[in-house]
C-alpha cells in the first residue's frame, strides 16, 4: 500500500459526505446504496464514521462529471481514466469525481460503481495506489465479486496505518455495570456462576459469547471448543451483547451498543455496521440485551431491560403494540434477559447464572437450569 506524500489524513473520525448529482446509468437508489456500501468497507476496519448530508458543505463531495470539470485533471471519455479523488484536506480535498462518460452499473455489465467508489474513497481517506494485484487500491480496474466483499489485507494494513483499527465505541449505558467484567479463561466454562453476554445458533452449532471469547457446542465434534471472536471475524469488535440466527437465510445478526452486523459463516456482510434504530427502535434504546428469532412465526424478539419488542422478519418492520413487559408474556421471567436462543422448538432464556427452557408457543417456562448446562459439566 502507499499513502500520499506527507501522509495527509483526516484529524476527525466523523466525516460527512454529499452526493452532488447522479449518473443517468443507474437508479438513484442504487447509486446511494453503492456509495454507502463503499464507505462501509472503510468504516468496518477503522474508527471512522461516514454520515451523508444532503445540502451545504461536506468533507467529501461526490459528483459525476465528464471531460474538463473545473480541476486540473480533465476526464478522457470512455475508458482510460474512470475516476479520481483528492487526498484529505480543505476544499477539494477528499472530493471524488466519477467520469460520466463511463457506463456505471451495480453489477458487472459496466464499471461497478461500488468497486470504483470504494477505491476512490481510499484516496479520499489518504491512501495512494498499491502494487499488490487484487488489492482494492490497485490502480487498474479489476472485476471482483462484490457480494460478501472483504477488504484485502493490504488495504486494511494501509488504512490502519493512518487511522488504526475500529474502537469499541461502547455508548454509556443508562446504569453503570454492576460488576466490572472480568476476562474469562477456558477453565471457567464450568463455573457454576457462569453468565453469558449473548448466545445464538449458527449452522447447527450453539455459540456462547462472553467478553472476547466464544464457546462452540457443535454436533460435528465432541465437547466444547473455545475460540477468540477475532479468530472467527477478524474485522469485528468483541463484546457482543445480543445475537440471533435466521437459519433459512444463513444469517447471524450480532449486536453491540447501537450497532449491528450481519455475518454469513465467517463472512461479514457488506453494508454493516448499521444503527439499531434503523430496525425501528426508539431513540432512547441504546443497546439490546438479547435477541432470539422464532423460525415458526418468523418474528425476532428483542429484549431491552424489562421490556421486549417483536420484529417481523418478513415485512422487516417492528410489530405494532410493542414494547411489552417481558414478565407479562413470559411468566416467571421477572428480570432482564442476558441472552436467548431457540433450539429444537424451545426458547432458552438466560439471566445471570440461570437458564430457563420455554415452550415457544405458550411462552411458559418448562425447566430452570444452570446457564452452562450445555457444557456437560
Amino acid at each position: 500500500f502507499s499513502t500520499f506524500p506527507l501522509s495527509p489524513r483526516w484529524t476527525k473520525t466523523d466525516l460527512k459526505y454529499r452526493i452532488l448529482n447522479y449518473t443517468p446509468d443507474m437508479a438513484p437508489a442504487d447509486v446511494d446504496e453503492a456509495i454507502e456500501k463503499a464507505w462501509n468497507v472503510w468504516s468496518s476496519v477503522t474508527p471512522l464514521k461516514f454520515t451523508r448530508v444532503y445540502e451545504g458543505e461536506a468533507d467529501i463531495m461526490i459528483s459525476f462529471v465528464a471531460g474538463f470539470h473545473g480541476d486540473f485533471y480533465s476526464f478522457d471519455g470512455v475508458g482510460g481514466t474512470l475516476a479520481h479523488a483528492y487526498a484529505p484536506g480543505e476544499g477539494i480535498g477528499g472530493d471524488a469525481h466519477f467520469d460520466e462518460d463511463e457506463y456505471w452499473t451495480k453489477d458487472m455489465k459496466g464499471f461497478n460503481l461500488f468497486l470504483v467508489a470504494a477505491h476512490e474513497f481510499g484516496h479520499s481517506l489518504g491512501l495512494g495506489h498499491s502494487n499488490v494485484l487484487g488489492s482494492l487500491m490497485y490502480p487498474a480496474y479489476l472485476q471482483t465479486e462484490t457480494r460478501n466483499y472483504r477488504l484485502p489485507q493490504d488495504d486494511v494494513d494501509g488504512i490502519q496505518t493512518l487511522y488504526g483499527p475500529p474502537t469499541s465505541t461502547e455508548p454509556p449505558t443508562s446504569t453503570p455495570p454492576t460488576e466490572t467484567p472480568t476476562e474469562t479463561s477456558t477453565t471457567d466454562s464450568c463455573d457454576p456462576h457462569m453468565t453469558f453476554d449473548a448466545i445464538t445458533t449458527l449452522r447447527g452449532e450453539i455459540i456462547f459469547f462472553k467478553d472476547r471469547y466464544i464457546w462452540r457446542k457443535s454436533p460435528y465434534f465432541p465437547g466444547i471448543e473455545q475460540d477468540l471472536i477475532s479468530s472467527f471475524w477478524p474485522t469485528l469488535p468483541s463484546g457482543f451483547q445480543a445475537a440471533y440466527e435466521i437459519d433459512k437465510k444463513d444469517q447471524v445478526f450480532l449486536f453491540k451498543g447501537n450497532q449491528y452486523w450481519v455475518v454469513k459463516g465467517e463472512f461479514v456482510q457488506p453494508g454493516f455496521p448499521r444503527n439499531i434504530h434503523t430496525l425501528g427502535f426508539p431513540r432512547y434504546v441504546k443497546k439490546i440485551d438479547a435477541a432470539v428469532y422464532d423460525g415458526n412465526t418468523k418474528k425476532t424478539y428483542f429484549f431491552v431491560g424489562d421490556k421486549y419488542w417483536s420484529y417481523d422478519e418478513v415485512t422487516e418492520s417492528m410489530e405494532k403494540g410493542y414494547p411489552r413487559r417481558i414478565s407479562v408474556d413470559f411468566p416467571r421471567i421477572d428480570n432482564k434477559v442476558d441472552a436467548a436462543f431457540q433450539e429444537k422448538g424451545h426458547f432458552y432464556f438466560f439471566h445471570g447464572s440461570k437458564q430457563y427452557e420455554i415452550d415457544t408457543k405458550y411462552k411458559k417456562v418448562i425447566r430452570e437450569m444452570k446457564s452452562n448446562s450445555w457444557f456437560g459439566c
Partner: protein
Amino acid sequence: FPVVPEMEKKNEEDMQFAEKYLEKYYKLKTEAEPIFKMKNSKTISDKIQEMQAFFGLKVTGELDSNTLEVMKQPRCGIPDVGQ
C-alpha cells in the same frame, strides 16, 4: 527487417499513447515543460521501467506488448508515484 509503413505508424501511435500515460501517472516531463530540466527528470525509457516495476512486469524500458496492455486497462486517474 524493413519496418512496414503502417507498422511504423502504429508504433508511433503506441508511443504517443504511452507518453500521455506516463505523463499522467508517472510524472514524465513533456517537451512543453520549462527549459530547465528537473534535476531528476528521466527519459521515457526510465519512466517505462518505473511503471513496469510498479506493475510487476519484466523491467525492460521497452514499450513491449505486455506493458502496453496494462497501460490500456481502465484505471483510476490518480498518479501511481509522486502524487
